[in-house]
């Protein structure tokens, strides 16, 4: 099974890179759809937060990163995990709670980890991983490394104290961390404007004297470019950046929540889908002649096969052994 690689190979043409990004977005989309099905079948338990609609963010960000860079995210992190190169098998198996999962079946959907891929988790407390990201960047600087740390979180986290404490220290200490606020407008059923005095998340950058940009999160190239600028600032001078990436989630907050309802209309969701990042990119690639229908079909087939293989693999994998219950509470 080929795994998705997050990085453009050296000497890659622009078209090839964009085709790769299209493939990555498609993989996330199909993966999440399957995860949704598996959840409905009871094969996945707990909370399961799908990334459908937001694919361009993880893909665009990842395209600007090196394999040695750290990525850390909230509980809505299947996409980021996949695009960083954790195999669909290992992610799906983790959702299924299997021993072959990327966290050995002990973390689940909200806690995907793969240290070899520098994917530092899936974290469940809103805002809680922003200090962790800052600490990873602290470690980079301490060691004199030139990696960066990319930290994904939702806009609702801006209202919680940890966001502010982390941004302040990242700026005071000039740490190479990029705060990626995926502003999908809602925290569960709450529209951001109902709970935030200022709805432009970038405004907060002024309070911390850090670079900031608003990014169109439905356009993977826009994301990639803004991220490249942020990465450059971080890698060179240890300057943190706050990117407000405007995006949209198509599904309910988690598999337990409704698609829409009082908090947003069906029309709004449908309207947003017109800006679908996958549609946009495939359209562009077709216009540029970088891909044709046959190419698209092949991609689709390839990705579907990869996801189906992942489901099969997860299904057939064993549960963790009972001894796993007490393993890894403490390290030696």
């Amino acid at each position, binding site marked *: 099974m080929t795994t998705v690689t997050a990085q453009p190979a050296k000497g890659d043409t622009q078209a090839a890179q964009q085709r790769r990004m299209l493939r990555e977005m498609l993989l996330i989309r199909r993966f999440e759809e399957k995860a949704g099905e598996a959840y409905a079948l009871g094969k996945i*338990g*707990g*909370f399961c937060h799908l990334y459908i609609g937001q694919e361009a963010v993880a893909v665009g960000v990842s395209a600007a990163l090196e394999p040695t860079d750290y990525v850390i995210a909230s509980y809505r992190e299947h996409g980021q995990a996949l695009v960083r190169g954790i195999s669909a098998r290992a992610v799906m198996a983790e959702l299924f*709670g*299997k021993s072959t999962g990327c*966290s050995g*079946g*002990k*973390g*689940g*959907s*909200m*806690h995907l980890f793969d240290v070899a891929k520098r994917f530092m988790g899936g*974290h*469940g*407390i*809103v*805002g809680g991983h922003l200090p962790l990201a800052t600490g990873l960047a602290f470690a980079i600087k301490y060691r004199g490394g030139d990696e960066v740390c990319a930290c994904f979180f939702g806009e*609702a*986290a801006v*209202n*919680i*104290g940890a966001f502010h404490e982390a941004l302040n220290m990242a700026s005071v200490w000039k740490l190479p961390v990029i705060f990626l606020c995926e502003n999908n407008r809602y*925290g*569960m*059923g*709450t529209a951001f404007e*109902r*709970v*935030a005095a200022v709805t432009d998340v970038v405004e907060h950058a002024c309070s911390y004297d850090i670079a900031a940009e608003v990014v169109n999160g439905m356009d993977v190239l826009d994301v990639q470019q803004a991220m490249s600028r942020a990465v450059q600032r971080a890698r060179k001078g240890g300057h943190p950046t706050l990117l407000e990436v405007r995006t949209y989630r198509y599904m309910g907050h988690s598999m337990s929540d409704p698609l829409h*309802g*009082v*908090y947003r209309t069906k029309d709004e969701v449908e309207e947003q889908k017109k800006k679908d990042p996958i549609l946009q990119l495939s359209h562009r690639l077709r216009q540029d002649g970088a891909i044709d229908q046959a190419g698209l079909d092949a991609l689709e087939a390839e990705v579907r096969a990869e996801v189906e293989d992942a489901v099969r693999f997860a299904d057939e994998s064993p*549960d*963790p052994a*009972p001894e*796993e*219950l*007490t393993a890894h*509470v403490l390290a030696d």
Partner: protein
Amino acid sequence: MPTITYRDALNQALREEMQRDPNVFLMGEEVGLYQGAYKVSRGLLEEFGAKRIVDTPIAELGFAGIGVGAAMGGLRPVVEFMTWNFAVLALDQIVNSAAKMLYMSGGQIPMPIVFRGPNGAALQLSSQHSQAWESWLSHIPGLKVVAPATPYDAKGLLKSAIRDNNPVVVLEGEMLYNNKGDVPEGEILIPIGQADVKREGSHVTIICHSKTVAIALKAADQLATQDISAEVIDLRTLRPLDDTAILRSVAKTNRVVVVEEGWPQCGVGAQVADLIQREAFDQLDAPVLRVTQADVPMPYNKQLERLAKPSPEKVVAAARRVLYLD
């Protein structure tokens, strides 16, 4: 007698107390427009309006503190935590502001506030979303802590909590909200601080609260098939503990198993065991045994999670051990 869910019992309690006293209001994440993450506040926004059903940002420390401030200003806030897992961020306000305010002001500032929400594990929510906080919370003087197991107790205790002039922690449970039970119409007020005998028995006492009451009752059923008569004591209130009720049952059975959702060290069961060995030393025919969550963060995998949680089987095994049957 109407049979309603635990969720609806809480909803009734909130509604009745809000109708009764205009100073009572509810605040928390998703309590209004979304009708509550677990729908406990369903319909309340429509009935009481946005002034009294207040949707907050995700800012547990901040809104818990705002609740405390509102209580200082004479209101009677009910602060909902989407789950107690997130309330860890608000502990400074619960412990340092709410619990200590009356004392450090020399008795000037009463603190009529309720902090409520689901506590402990649900199903496969993994390490960060499955924590049972009763041991921590019941450690703190200045707080009261209740953990109702049934719809009836949920309604009666939440109503008492709202009327109490002290900060009361109400520990509910995602896995309890759908449970049904008889709840008579009209005013129910269960005094805080009273345990309840959920089943009478004579050979062994099983002490439990919240979700573990159902486990204890199942264990008692199983034990009955082995001709063992188990008494099930539901603590209901964890602070102040109903020492009298506990000791009364010990005097009768002389053997005790304590079961709780939380971790073993310094758990509620440790306190109960300490109490019993101290106050009923000569009545004990066997050491008090405990059934708790395994001493590990909660794993995601379903089988491991099952192994980690207390279960009727584990309670039966402990009961047989205190009876020296195994």
